[in-house]
């Protein structure tokens, strides 16, 4: 899952709504003056595109130019230094394997769950679990998983010594394994909820229920019928989210630093380490590494795209064979429920582990529970936690508020000036999610040098967060905004209301549930950002996430638990409010309730 995704409403925005959906619009078009006045609002879409694209391009230039020695005249020295690093091939290999395997498995699990369980009661339960699962920042999820599966972790403790005979933690290489499998598991646990959400958002436009019904009425098994009739249309809508997942999985720094191998680490982690080294040469080596990382991502994306075509041809070939595969349904159903429960269990148990360690006194192996509960960790860290939590919240609030204003302006401009974004526009939204952070953020790092005052640094970090928060806010809000019945605006106008009044008194209040969900989502995306905070903040801005990752190397589980837990609590509270507030405010408005979560 790309940096810090969280939830869209389960009813979901059709991702393709951004594509030309003229055919679906209500017959009557929005009220609009025949000669629209000149208006700043009109340029909101341009501003949005600039905000998303300019930092990425500038950052890429700032990374690529030094890599080729174009800024210091050293030519290919950076690439020679990179080639001299003996771990290069292995690090690239790790990035490719962890990224591709975790994405492939996540996609498989997601589609399996949807195919086997769509429309069942279990599916409803899954939908309810999505928001809390998505609200967990990557670093917290990784830390929780590490606490769980380490040889001295909770799983081993729960089974020891009665089942395993272990009096000491076994000498097993589970975490930070050289093959990156712990990282792959962590990525899968975090990507499946994201892909599930995107699938839920796309399903309404695939006519899944009717297609599935006609397939099963022809004697096809549910799962196989899904693959043959729903998947092709569904995958077209999932393609961009899948690419974003692939990019993220190949280039994550925080999750890989916590769960991934260290002999050598993945390429992105190594690049980040080089960025932080004191000597100049390592900076350009890092830039060269970032170029290699970018090429690796592009290569894997192209290979993935090629595989899509092969898979499509194979599917078409197989579809004609008439195999019904009805017998596969029951096992598929059980597998889907089992795998889904294990993943959700890993995340929740990991978080419970974080919480328990944060209040643990002495807790030696192999005890399953601490000897005593103590608030000492929280009490000691309270001032730090408060300050860091405050900064985290301030940045998240700024970034989300800015994103929300821009997105609303953009959507309102679309409505008032009758603009129709094309398919290309969706790609633009995804640019910051498809270009690896590690490839363009180093190029932006020079910016922070001119920002001396800490107050400005906070703004700079918040602005950097906007680049990643805005796409999610847009994706989350765009669907509900465009699906809103434009006749209500027309009626408002016919009743004499100005466009501004229609916006503030009709559209915004009616879309409040969606706006709140987008807000919670924006906050959670911002809270989860690691690299942008680290590189743009230049060490002066500490958030719960940078702290949690910095502390993770130290192994003090109690304080890591406190930071990890707090990191998760903010977004969780946001989502809880996004669900509760509309219910509270519109308790007496039944017509508003279908619209909320």
């Amino acid at each position: 899952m790309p940096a810090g995704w969280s939830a869209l409403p389960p009813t979901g925005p059709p991702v393709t709504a951004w594509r030309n959906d003229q055919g679906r619009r209500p017959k009557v078009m929005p009220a609009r003056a025949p000669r629209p006045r000149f208006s700043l609002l009109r340029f909101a879409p341009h501003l949005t595109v600039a905000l998303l694209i300019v930092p990425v391009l500038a950052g890429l230039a700032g990374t690529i130019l030094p890599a080729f020695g174009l800024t210091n005249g050293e030519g290919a020295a950076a690439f020679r230094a990179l080639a001299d690093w003996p771990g290069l091939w292995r690090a690239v290999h790790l990035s490719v394997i962890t990224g591709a395997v975790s994405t492939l498995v996540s996609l498989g699990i997601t589609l399996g769950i949807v195919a086997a369980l769509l429309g069942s009661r279990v599916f409803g339960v899954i939908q309810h679990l999505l928001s809390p699962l998505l609200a967990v920042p990557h670093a917290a999820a990784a830390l929780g998983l590490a606490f769980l599966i380490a040889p001295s972790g909770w799983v081993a403790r729960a089974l020891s010594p009665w089942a395993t005979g272990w009096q000491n933690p076994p000498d097993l290489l589970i975490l930070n394994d050289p093959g990156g499998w712990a990282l792959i598991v962590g990525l899968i646990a975090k990507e499946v909820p994201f892909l599930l959400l995107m699938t839920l958002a796309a399903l309404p436009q695939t006519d899944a229920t009717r297609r599935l019904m006609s397939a099963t009425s022809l004697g096809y098994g549910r799962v196989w019928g899904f693959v043959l009739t729903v998947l092709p249309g569904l995958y077209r809508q999932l393609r961009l989210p899948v690419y974003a997942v692939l990019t993220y999985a190949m280039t994550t720094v925080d999750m890989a630093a916590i769960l991934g191998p260290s002999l050598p680490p993945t390429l992105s982690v190594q690049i980040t380490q080089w960025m932080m080294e004191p000597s100049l040469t390592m900076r350009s080596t890092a830039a060269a590494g970032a170029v290699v990382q970018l090429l690796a991502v592009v290569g894997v994306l192209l290979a993935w795209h090629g595989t899509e075509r092969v898979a499509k041809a194979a599917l078409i070939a197989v579809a004609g064979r008439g195999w019904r595969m009805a017998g596969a349904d029951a096992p598929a159903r059980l597998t889907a429920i089992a795998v889904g429960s294990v993943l959700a269990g890993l995340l929740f148990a990991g978080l419970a582990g974080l919480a328990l360690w944060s209040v643990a006194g002495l807790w030696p192996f192999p005890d399953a529970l601490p000897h005593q509960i103590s608030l000492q960790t929280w009490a000691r860290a309270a001032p730090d936690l408060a300050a860091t939590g405050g900064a985290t919240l301030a940045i998240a609030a700024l970034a989300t508020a800015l994103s929300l204003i821009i997105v609303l302006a953009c959507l309102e401009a679309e409505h008032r000036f009758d603009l129709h974004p094309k398919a290309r526009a969706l790609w633009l939204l995804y640019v910051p999610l498809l270009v690896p952070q590690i490839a363009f953020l180093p190029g932006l790092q020079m910016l922070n040098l001119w920002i001396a005052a800490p107050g400005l640094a906070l703004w700079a970090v918040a602005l950097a967060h906007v680049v990643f928060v805005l796409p999610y806010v847009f994706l989350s809000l765009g669907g509900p905004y465009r699906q809103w019945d434009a006749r209500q605006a027309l009626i408002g106008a016919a009743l004499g209301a100005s466009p501004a009044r229609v916006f503030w008194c009709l559209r915004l209040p009616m879309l409040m549930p969606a706006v709140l969900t987008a807000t919670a989502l924006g906050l959670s995306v911002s809270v989860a950002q690691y690299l942008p905070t680290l590189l743009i903040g230049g060490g002066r801005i500490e958030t719960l996430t940078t702290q949690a990752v910095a502390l993770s190397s130290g192994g003090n589980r109690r304080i890591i638990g406190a930071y990890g837990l707090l990191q998760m609590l903010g977004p969780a509270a946001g989502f809880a409010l996004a669900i509760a507030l509309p219910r509270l405010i519109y308790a007496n408005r039944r017509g508003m309730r279908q619209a909320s979560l």
Partner: protein
Amino acid sequence: MTQTGLDLRDLRVTHLGTQIAALNTRIAPAEVLVVMGPSGSGKSTLLSAIIGSLPAGFGVSGQIVLNGRDVSHLPTARRRIGILFQDDVLFAHLSVGQNLGFGLPADAGNKAQRREIIDQALADADLAGFANRDPATLSGGQRARAALLRTLLAQPAALLLDEPFSRLDLGLRHHIRQFVLDRARSHRLPVILVTHDPGDAEAAGGRIIGPDGSAL
């Protein structure tokens, strides 16, 4: 302002060069002009043109003159033309009273006076005591009446009806239709009623034309 009604002077709507609708007529105060035709024949497009909400890609020529005032180039909010749809489209986040209040002009009085106007309007429509109700709890007929009240409180100078009764069941349809047309006539509003229900046309009891302006 003189009450001369709604004057459509050589109004023509085109899409990509094709004529969708054309009308050259005057609807007098309290007159109901019925525009009939199958779906897709351009009836709703015609209403969009009159109210000023045509999507991009449509061309419009001619003049829309309301009580002697050319509104062709005004935004919807300043045309003073009310519209009712087949779904009554009450704003779901507002109470029935607040819905009516949304239509009431800002200069209609202070809070208490506004409240009084709304209560009176509701009482006149057999909806007394409904001001604080959630619109979602109203029956179809009640919602249709509330929607009309809201439109009339905005003091329009003309009324457009876009198949407003087609969703109502037969018994109710007759009653509501009579209610709407009576109110429109008593306000002396020029009315354009777009429908494909011959019952509507009959009840209106006036001229019946197609979207191309031809008499039916």
